[in-house]
């Protein structure tokens, strides 16, 4: 399966680090967005996007709202979502799970953890 990632983060630095890590893991196909709204626009315009990696705290539309919107839209509701965020308290993780993220990484991440979570999501799909 050809994976096309949508990397969503308001920090340019974080987007570059995630994309560098994806490239190192052998995934060369990706697009990026600076907030949840831009991510939804990209998802709507490009049906080949089949994996979303998103931050939580973002302007305009947060990562959590993005997850809820994706899950509520029949056209894109099945897209796997990996949340990568600084929010590491139990209540936040549970809130994200209730919004139906597929997996959760607490920043700062290591490439091993990123690979592990992507593999877990793909195996479960």
């Amino acid at each position: 399966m050809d994976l096309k990632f949508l990397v969503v983060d308001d920090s340019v630095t974080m987007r570059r680090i995630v994309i560098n890590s994806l490239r190192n893991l052998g995934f060369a196909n990706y697009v990026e967005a600076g907030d949840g709204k831009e991510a939804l626009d990209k998802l709507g315009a490009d049906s080949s996007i089949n994996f979303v990696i998103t931050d939580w705290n973002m302007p305009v539309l947060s990562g959590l709202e993005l997850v809820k919107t994706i899950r509520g839209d029949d056209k894109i509701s099945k897209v796997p979502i990996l949340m990568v965020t600084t929010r590491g308290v139990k209540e936040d993780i549970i809130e994200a799970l209730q919004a139906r993220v597929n997996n959760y990484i607490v920043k700062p991440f290591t490439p091993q953890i990123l690979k592990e979570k992507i593999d877990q999501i793909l195996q479960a799909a």
Partner: protein
Amino acid sequence: MKQVSNMSDLFERLNDLKVVFRYGQKLIPIIQSIIDFMKETVPLLEDINTSIADSTNKIPKAKDQITNVTSATELATTEILDIADSISIDLDKIEKELKLLQENETKKKELWVKIKDLLKDNDGSGQLVEEYEQLDNSIAVMANFQKVFDKIKNDVYNITLSLQVQDITSQQLAAVNHLIESVRQRLSSLVMHLDETELSNMELVKIDSPDNSTFNPEAVYTKSQEKQDMADSLVNSNSSKASQDEIDKLFS
């Protein structure tokens, strides 16, 4: 008789009035000291008010400075990422060349075996062949180069990973900015209504970050796996068919 009684009343009243005047004379110094105290306190209060107003006016500058720090570190981080990318691209180029050299050396080795075979009947070549073979360690050297390249590539990649600190500290600084802005608003309010009620209210006010904030005030840069382990544990509980009740139980 009635007139006498009225006069007695009058004298009594005048006596009362005399007592009041005497008491008033005792009160005068106290009232004077209160007036003096107020004369001294009012300028002090004005000073305090001016000082708070001055501090309040300076707060936006502090906020701007923090925002500038965030912008500067973001710019520096981008530059470091650019340089790291450039190093990685150069290393990839060198690595490709090195692989070509290694392939050539392997081919040369195969040819050398054939040449050596042709030279075996030639008198005096044995010594030269031996000397040549002692000097020819290029394949081993290239293998070492490859190890060093791999290490440098890994180090460069680790540098870029460490730059996640910029995102995390910028969130912490955004949280500080939010806190400063909240304090500024409270101080502005205090300048306008400097009274005890306002002060006691201020102590009770908890400054929270807004729900839709673009930062996490709890963001931490740490190598500790504790939070990721907790996330994994919750995700695993969830994926092994956790019911809503089970999630609620975890939550409680």
